[in-house]
């Protein structure tokens, strides 16, 4: 395995040897020339547009962070799993289930409990639901040694069908009204703090919003430190890169993987809970609409590190904010006019296309943990 990885890394600097390789190089060359021509032609416009967007974003960072929260938490789930060597494409399904379960408890309990306790209980059950699914994934991937892509697909199918089924039975037919959302500004900083130029809006984006949004920042920092500075992190990475070696020095590979995948479900649960209990307070069938897959993209784009994934989530959130911003008011200049006429779908595609480019290794290469996706078999000789 490692020999193959080294070979592919060396290959990236050599000229292509096959027809396909040349086709790829030719396509890339054409794209590069077009990109350079574009930048040269529209240099002033790009600067103007950049200034406009920085101004727009600086006054509304909470929107960007708001988009980034479910993506970021989903990506943290991916980091937890894949760093220990388990691929998880079921994040989408875990999120959707958590969103629904959280909503269900929030909606049913806000009468008897009052709305803040109901929302908190809802978040708890959302996390529990996602954790149950991640336990299923862990069992299938680690103990049964089923194909991890299939396991993730099963979770996505079950989540989509299951939430729609119970949504119809327990919410639509039963005529249950929406859940209440979590309170904002829980730290209750004085409003003057948010008036401070530059820092104020950023502080508002972090502390002035709901608790889950605030939690993301701490989760990212905590996980980044833990992953690279703690015994747990070292073990996790060892298990993800070379489980056999980790096993030899006495690390229980199976246990580390189980723990990481199950705990990863907590983050997917928070992502789902954010959607229903902090962001909108209602549930629609299939409401995650691919956020779990964007989270996967953010994890790859961020090179499997918590901070990287968070930055990627912010970039994806910014792209979506830009897509909305140009609909509200057209940016200045010729280029601004052009961008204002771009359909929203183009902005929506941005994360996916960026990730494909990164995966193709055109702009910096994304390399997954070496043992990612390989079930660990203690007795195998490889």
């Amino acid at each position, binding site marked *: 395995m490692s020999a193959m990885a080294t070979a592919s890394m060396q290959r990236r600097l050599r000229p292509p040897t096959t027809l396909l390789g040349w086709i*790829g190089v030719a396509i890339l060359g054409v794209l590069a020339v077009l990109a350079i021509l574009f930048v040269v032609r529209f240099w002033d416009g790009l600067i103007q547009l950049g200034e406009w967007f920085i101004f727009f974003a600086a006054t509304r960072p909470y929107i960007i962070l708001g988009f980034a929260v479910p993506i970021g938490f989903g990506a943290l789930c991916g980091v937890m799993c894949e760093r220990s060597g388990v691929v998880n*494409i079921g994040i989408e399904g875990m999120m959707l289930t958590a969103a629904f379960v959280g909503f269900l408890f929030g909606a049913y309990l806000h009468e008897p409990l009052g709305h803040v306790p109901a929302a908190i209980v809802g978040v708890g059950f959302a996390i529990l639901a996602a954790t149950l699914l991640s336990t299923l994934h862990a069992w*299938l991937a680690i103990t049964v040694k089923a194909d991890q892509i*299939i*396991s993730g697909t099963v979770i996505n199918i079950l989540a989509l069908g299951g939430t*729609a089924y119970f949504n119809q039975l327990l919410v639509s037919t039963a005529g249950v009204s929406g859940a209440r959302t979590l309170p904002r500004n829980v730290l209750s900083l004085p409003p003057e703090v948010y008036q401070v130029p530059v820092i104020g809006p950023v502080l508002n984006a972090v502390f002035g919003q709901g608790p889950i949004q605030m939690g993301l920042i701490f989760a990212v920092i905590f996980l980044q430190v833990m992953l690279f500075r703690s015994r747990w992190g070292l073990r996790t990475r060892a298990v993800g890169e070379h489980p056999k070696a980790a096993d030899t020095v006495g690390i229980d590979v199976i246990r580390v993987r189980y723990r990481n995948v199950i705990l990863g479900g907590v983050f997917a649960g928070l992502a789902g809970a954010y959607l229903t209990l902090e962001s909108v307070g209602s549930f629609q069938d299939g409401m995650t609409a691919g956020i779990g897959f964007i989270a996967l993209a953010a994890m790859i784009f961020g090179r499997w590190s918590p901070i990287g994934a968070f930055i990627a989530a912010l970039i994806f959130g910014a792209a979506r904010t830009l897509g909305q911003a140009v609909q509200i008011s057209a940016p200045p200049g010729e280029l601004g006019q052009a961008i204002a006429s771009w359909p929203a779908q183009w902005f929506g595609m941005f994360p996916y*296309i960026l990730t494909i480019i990164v*995966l193709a290794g055109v702009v910096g290469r994304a390399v997954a943990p070496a043992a990612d996706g390989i079930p660990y078999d203690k007795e195998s000789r490889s």
Partner: protein
Amino acid sequence: MTSETGPGQGGMSLNPTSLLGTDRGLGRQFTSTVVAILLGLIVGALLIWLSSALSEDGFQLDLPLAAYLSLLQGSLGNERGWANTFNAATPLILTGLSVAFGFRAGLFNIGAQGQFFLGAFGAAILGTTVGIPFPLHVIWTLVGGFLFGAFWGFIPGLLKAWRGAHEVVVTIMLNSVAALSLNWLAGVVFRDPAATFPRTSDVEGSALLPILLEGTRMHAGILIAVGAALAVWFLLFKTTLGFEIRTVGANPSAARYAGIRPARITVLTMSLAGGLAGTAGAIEILGITKNYPAEYNTTYGFDGIAVALLGRAHPFGVVGAALLFAVLRAGSGAMQRETGIPVDIISIVQGAIILFVAAEMVIRRFLPGGRRATGGAAAAPSAA
């Protein structure tokens, strides 16, 4: 199937060929498949029974049976039901073949969904050309749909072969790119101005698939789908190329030593797989929807994964699995009308069946003589 399958489950990364089972014979595979289906149906029945507690009469033990009976009645009880079943089976067979074909080369084509969309859109556009006579127009449109889908499969194939980008992630991303870009193309660029909701114009009558059963909507797509299954079977098991594809799937390094170029096979397999899913989309347009709606809400591509898994990546198994899922799908509407059980129970049953297929080692434990089959020895017969 005994001699054709038998790839090892060695410690390679994501190895979908492990699904094809070990060379333990068709009988055992068949048994465990039937067990998985039954367990899936039992899960569905339990869920229906539990949700009957919500009704005024409380728990009803006979509700699951009533639901399944009305489902069967809806899909197989009359001519219209049969027509709906075959119409639903058609795209499922083709997307199932698409995923199964990838499995054979060791590739996991999660992108059947996006390739389906591309093929559907291609057919919807080509179908609007005026002035081509009937059979020619259908063929031209279907070929167009195949090529559109093949293009969407070619991209991940190329990126895998040339850059080593994992096809699973690339196809997941391309699914979303397809849905979003076609939403824009069909809803804005090619939008039919006369239509009330965003969609493309209706295809010409000369591009529509002929109706097989008078008085129903059953179109000729099922013949194409079964023909495609035969063609894929022939290609995989009776030609040199098929042998090369299966060799790459079983062991890429061995294939390389045998003079097969895995990169070439990867690109070719992904393109053909994309073409199969694209054809499914094209048939769906020419037989059912007649235009591409901007919010095209279908899961045929994703269901193809389930079909391929249940069909053990064998073309004939795919046809059987697709027919089973089509029966569930075609009858689900009648079930909801008569018993009030939401149609989504079908997705749960499908998911549960695949769960039990994936967890087959656990099932084997409960089969006679199966305890031996668990553990490393049976899982890696050719690892040495």
